[in-house]
């Protein structure tokens, strides 16, 4: 039954559904599980649906089925009981029914769901009844489910193979690398690209508009009239503005840049500019921010449908954003407050998004992030965030 195992998985954030749990029971019914090894593999493939959780699963499994790392030894006992109950129920429902002092037919009437709940309730009762919640299962009481308690049917404890190699496997934590949730890494890039590709309006390669053709043909009383549509894919313009100054952006710059260089194969019209911390009069087309300046004022001549993506941590001294002469570079003195520049961009282009490599929790510690968030919709630079940003860029303003 492994109810406790199931709940631990859920508690630790693995989305395990009851349906899949019952499916696991079914697999055991069918005699597909002969050892702890089998259980490890089968339970994982049935319950855990992403390699991201494999590491967590390994840890919980190792924790659950081996007492080495266990602080509370009684948890092992509970598992023994849960395991035993499972075994008994699968092999000999009558015996278990007798043990629990309940009619077998009554037990049979229960759906597996109810049954699980029933077992769990019984286990909880035991907790309260015996040791004031200190220990889960009484070890010397008269409880039928107790370890060495009174059990007329002679319940076997722990019928599952003692082969511990599954635990060894679990302890190896082979899937540690897959559990990273943090910002985009190089490896995740390809996937992120797929998300971006969605931004280019897709649609059938076939440029005949079939629906309209049929409609028009009908209107023509069956004389075929073929309607052509323009291709949509080439229209999208993307401008990428990257904050490549300051130590805070340093770790991300490679990732960001590579990411959008890939994008150039997707978007016919992709421009990349760089800035430091925030945007004043100019941005630069070269990463050194020296040779190829581009006046922000010229942005207004660009297609208003252009998608603007700004990548930066938006974290700086407030005066850089708010004061008219806020730029930290001497040659950039007469600027007007940078926040006005940002508002100008947001007003000129209706499809804007700001990608922030810092995690959402960190945003709240920075005042400038808050201010900029009021101007641009801000997203985390993670797969999820990127997807949200892309969705936003494709749908906003419509």
């Amino acid at each position: 039954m492994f109810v406790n195992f199931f709940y631990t998985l859920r508690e630790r954030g693995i989305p395990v559904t009851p349906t899949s749990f019952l499916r696991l029971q079914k697999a055991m019914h069918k005699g597909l599980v002969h050892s702890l090894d089998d259980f490890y593999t089968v339970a994982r493939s049935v319950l855990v649906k992403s390699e991201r959780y494999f590491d967590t699963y390994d840890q919980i499994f190792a924790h659950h089925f081996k007492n080495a790392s266990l602080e509370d030894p009684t948890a092992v006992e509970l598992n023994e009981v849960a395991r035993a109950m499972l075994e008994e129920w699968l092999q000999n429902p009558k015996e278990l029914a007798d043990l629990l002092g309940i009619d077998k037919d009554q037990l049979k009437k229960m759906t597996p769901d109810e049954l699980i709940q029933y077992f769990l309730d019984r286990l909880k009762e035991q907790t309260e009844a015996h040791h004031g919640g200190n220990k889960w299962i009484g070890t010397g009481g008269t409880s039928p489910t107790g370890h060495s308690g009174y059990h007329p049917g002679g319940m076997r404890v722990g019928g599952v193979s003692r082969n511990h190699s599954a635990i060894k496997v679990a302890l190896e934590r082979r899937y540690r690398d897959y559990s990273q949730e943090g910002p985009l890494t190089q490896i995740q890039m390809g996937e992120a690209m797929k998300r971006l590709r969605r931004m280019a309006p897709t649609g059938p390669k076939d440029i005949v508009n079939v629906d309209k053709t049929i409609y028009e043909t009908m209107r023509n009383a069956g004389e075929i009239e073929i309607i052509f549509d323009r291709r949509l894919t080439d229209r999208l313009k993307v401008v990428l503005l990257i904050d490549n100054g300051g130590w805070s952006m340093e770790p991300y710059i490679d990732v960001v840049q590579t990411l959008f260089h890939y994008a150039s194969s997707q978007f016919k019209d992709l421009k990349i500019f760089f800035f430091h911390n925030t945007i004043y009069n100019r941005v630069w087309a070269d990463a050194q921010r020296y040779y190829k300046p581009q006046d922000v004022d010229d942005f207004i001549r660009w297609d208003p449908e252009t998608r603007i993506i700004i990548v930066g941590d938006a974290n700086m001294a407030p005066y850089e954003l708010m004061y008219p002469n806020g730029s930290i570079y001497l040659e950039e003195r007469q600027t007007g407050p940078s926040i006005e520049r940002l508002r100008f961009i947001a007003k000129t282009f209706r499809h804007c998004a700001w990608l922030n490599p810092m995690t959402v929790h960190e945003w709240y510690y920075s005042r400038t992030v808050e201010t900029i968030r009021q101007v641009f919709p801000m997203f985390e630079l993670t797969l999820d965030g990127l997807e949200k940003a892309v969705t936003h860029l494709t749908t906003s303003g419509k």
Partner: protein
Amino acid sequence: MVEGPQEFIMVLEKNNPRFTGASQYVLDDELAKIVNVSMALEMPLLLKGEPGTGKTMLAHAIAQSLQMPLIVLNVKSSMKLIEALYQYDTLTRLNDSRFGDSKRNVSDIEAYIKMGKIGQAFTADKKTVLLIDEIDKADTDFQDDMLDVLDQMQFDIIEIDKTIKAKHRPVIVITSNAKKDLSDPFLGRCNFHHIAFPDPDMMRLIVNVHFPKLDDELMKVCITTFYRLRELRGIEKKPATRELINWIRALKSDPDFKPKTLYQGRVPFLGVLFKKSADLQQATQQIIKSRG
């Protein structure tokens, strides 16, 4: 690809075919268990993993080992579910009705219905292996709808008001390259396995399957070099199993090549391993550097 006589390693219990591996595919115990459980539970098996870990090959291996026909549905981004089920060939019908030079009966719509890949798997006379390759390319609606069809093992052909029921439930293998998870309802209906990149021992077995007579010395040095090359920094597409196999083939075909070369840190035919020019450049530079 298939070299030499094919040997099937198969354990046939009474009406209970179990999958243990095929001649060109090295299967680890874990995966074998999962395949067997999925077949017993009659659930699709979703496979994820780096390119080159043999996701697609697994379906071929299952088909080979259980001697079932394999039907491959290559999912494309623009694909609609209906294409995977059946196609109503309206164009041919239009043509027939206008010029009438075929033997088909124009008023019989069924004559113009062609089965798609899923349809073929359902209507096949014997149990088949249905491989749905790269499901992540399609959008979520496609994925969910497809799972509905596979769940119920039937679909309707609207044009002729007929329900196609699966004669035999196919063994379904679905592969995905996505790092991102598929939708929850989808995952809920599949068994899942992630194929990790094979470790050197496993790789030795895999190479052995492809080159049974390979010299031990050469094998060892090739695999060591290969894993070292995978560790190089800044590589966008790391060489995978396929590249290793091709690379060894290239080394073998070069009469001047000696394992000593690899020991000295020189790596011939780098282009076989690194397919992108930027990667190749990176790798070359780092190899030169490491040689001092």
